[in-house]
């Protein structure tokens, strides 16, 4: 008997009839030097099975010892998510058979996670804040990697045999699970994406992981269920794996909403199952059917002793927290006098770090911002690179800004200087000299000043008479005569000198 096929319901219609409930599980691979329970390296890309030892290979007789840095990272993630840190917790064994797990159990945490009951305030595109509840964050170890050989697509279905590499087995993972997220309505896909983005930024700010979804150091599973609109009930949820980008998070939610609505509206029942996201079609596909649901037979890990972080240790770690992303944004909004829209534009452009660094190098915030957001963004777009990939540093930009405000360069010539740096012609001063962007010769300046004064004798008289303000016209004339390359400030000084 073939499975019935259902329609995909249009998004708006889904929302007319149903309320979605979201749940997101994110696994973060820590960037510690060594694995969770042994001293093997965690570096990516080594020859297979060259970063293993008796412990992470699960050899008979081997034993685990907990990596202190991994615990610290877990606590810091918990603190950043406003969680309570367990005063006492243990590891547990999650028992199931699979060849990528050397012990055929995973050392994880079950009912005693190290961090629990927190939240993350997610700022949406329109500036609205949505609070996502965090159920728990806990420590566990990663599995090895399997290559399936012989099948058509290199995937597990139809493969003849598999090849196992255990380099990744035992790498520390932190699993972060949200509470159920109701009330998202039509913003469910957006909120899911915004949450994963915010979590990524937060973990990145902590410096504990590369959080690259495209490299697998951050993995997301999307849980979704639908209930009849305004019923307050809970539907049956599906779990979607293989969600490898932020965009896929959004699309997976959207697809599942459409699919489940189609099932429910046709009178069918949503099956509680694991599905796989298909990148190419932005859809989800059912995973292998299981006979019975998995019983992991959890029990406390007898080879490890409890972890009891002292209050002092937790406070010490709280003190190492960097300024977290939204706190920083709030501060910059205030310091730079930005509106919500302006801030949002900067965040979306990825310009915040660059502007802040430019300000740190001495430039005024307004100038720093306008350079990065306008001219430099233009240059990045032309070159088809990200802003932070442009071959110019914030310090260099700050120097250019200084030259403009001192009058040494006009805005136009400043852009020329920037062009030169981007073209690889050298540092700012070198480019300015090589391109002849300023008149540095004093004698030339004096000659130009004298010539301008001679050309406007009545203005010259006014200046001699004490009307210093009138010098402006002479400065303008000199700038015009030198094609903007004169140092305006020096010109003004010379005018005063020559007229006194």
């Amino acid at each position, binding site marked *: 008997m073939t499975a019935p096929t259902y329609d995909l319901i249009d998004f708006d219609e889904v929302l007319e009839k149903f309320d979605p409930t979201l749940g997101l599980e994110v696994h973060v691979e820590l960037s510690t*030097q060594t694995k969770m329970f042994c001293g093997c390296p965690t570096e990516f890309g080594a*020859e297979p099975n*060259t970063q293993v030892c*008796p412990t992470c290979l699960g050899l008979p007789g081997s034993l685990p*010892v907990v990596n202190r840095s991994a615990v610290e990272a877990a606590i810091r993630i918990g603190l950043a998510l406003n969680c309570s840190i367990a005063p006492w917790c243990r590891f547990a064994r999650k028992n199931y058979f699979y060849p990528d797990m050397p012990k055929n159990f995973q050392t994880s945490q079950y009912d005693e996670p190290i961090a629990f009951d927190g939240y993350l305030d997610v700022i949406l595109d329109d500036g609205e804040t949505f609070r996502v509840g965090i159920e728990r964050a806990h420590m566990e170890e990663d599995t090895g990697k399997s290559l399936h050989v012989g099948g058509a697509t290199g995937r*597990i279905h139809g493969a003849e045999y*598999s*090849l196992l*590499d255990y380099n990744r087995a035992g790498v520390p993972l932190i699993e972060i699970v949200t509470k159920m997220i109701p009330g998202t309505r039509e913003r469910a896909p957006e909120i899911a994406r915004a949450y994963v983005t915010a979590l990524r930024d937060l973990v990145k700010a902590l410096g504990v992981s590369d959080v690259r979804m495209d490299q697998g150091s951050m993995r997301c599973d999307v849980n979704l269920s639908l209930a009849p609109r305004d019923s307050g009930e809970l539907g049956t949820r599906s779990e979607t794996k293989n969600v490898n980008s932020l965009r896929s998070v959004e699309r997976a939610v959207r697809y599942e909403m459409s699919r489940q609505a189609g099932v429910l509206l046709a009178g069918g029942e949503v099956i509680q199952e694991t599905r796989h996201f298909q990148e190419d079609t932005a859809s989800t596909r059912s995973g292998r059917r299981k006979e019975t649901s998995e019983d992991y037979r959890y029990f406390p890990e007898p080879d490890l002793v409890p972890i009891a972080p002292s209050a002092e240790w937790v406070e010490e770690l709280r003190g190492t927290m960097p300024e977290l992303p939204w706190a920083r944004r709030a501060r910059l909004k205030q310091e730079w006098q930005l509106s919500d829209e302006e801030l949002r534009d900067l965040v979306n452009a990825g310009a915040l770090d660059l502007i802040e660094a430019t300000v740190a190098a001495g430039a005024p915030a307004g100038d720093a911002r306008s350079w990065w957001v306008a001219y430099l963004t233009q240059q990045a777009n032309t070159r088809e690179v990200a802003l932070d990939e442009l071959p110019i540093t914030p310090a260099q930009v700050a120097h250019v800004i200084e030259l403009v405000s001192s009058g040494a360069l006009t805005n136009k010539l400043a852009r020329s200087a920037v062009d030169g740096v981007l073209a690889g012609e050298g540092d700012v001063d070198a480019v300015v000299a090589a391109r002849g962007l300023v008149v540095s010769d004093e004698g030339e300046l004096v000659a130009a000043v004298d010539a301008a004064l001679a050309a406007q004798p009545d203005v010259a008289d006014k200046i001699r008479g004490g009307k210093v303000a009138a010098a402006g016209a002479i400065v303008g004339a000199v700038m015009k005569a030198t094609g903007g390359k004169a140092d305006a400030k020096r010109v003004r000084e010379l005018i005063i000198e020559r007229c006194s």
Partner: protein
Amino acid sequence: MSADPGSPGPTLGRDDVAHLARLARLAVTEDELDLFAGQLDTIIEWVAKVGEIAAVDVPPTSHAVPLENVFRPDELRPGLTQEQALAGAPASQDGRFRVPRILGEEQ
């Protein structure tokens, strides 16, 4: 399982044993099913005596030794070479362990 989980009352039949064998990846024979069913049933009745102890407020012990916070620093330690790792492997290829095709799914 045919036994009632609320009270540890045994009655482990053949089917129950077959289910346990599957969970534990043991391809037990038909004869073994009968033998083990009888033996396990007896053993479970005997170990269920733990239920006779009233221990509602007693905390469980999972460690005989009251140790806490045993850690190692995040420092490299020499491991095995690829050759050593694969030395006992029933089959290997290209530096990896070669295993028959896997039917189940990764968790």
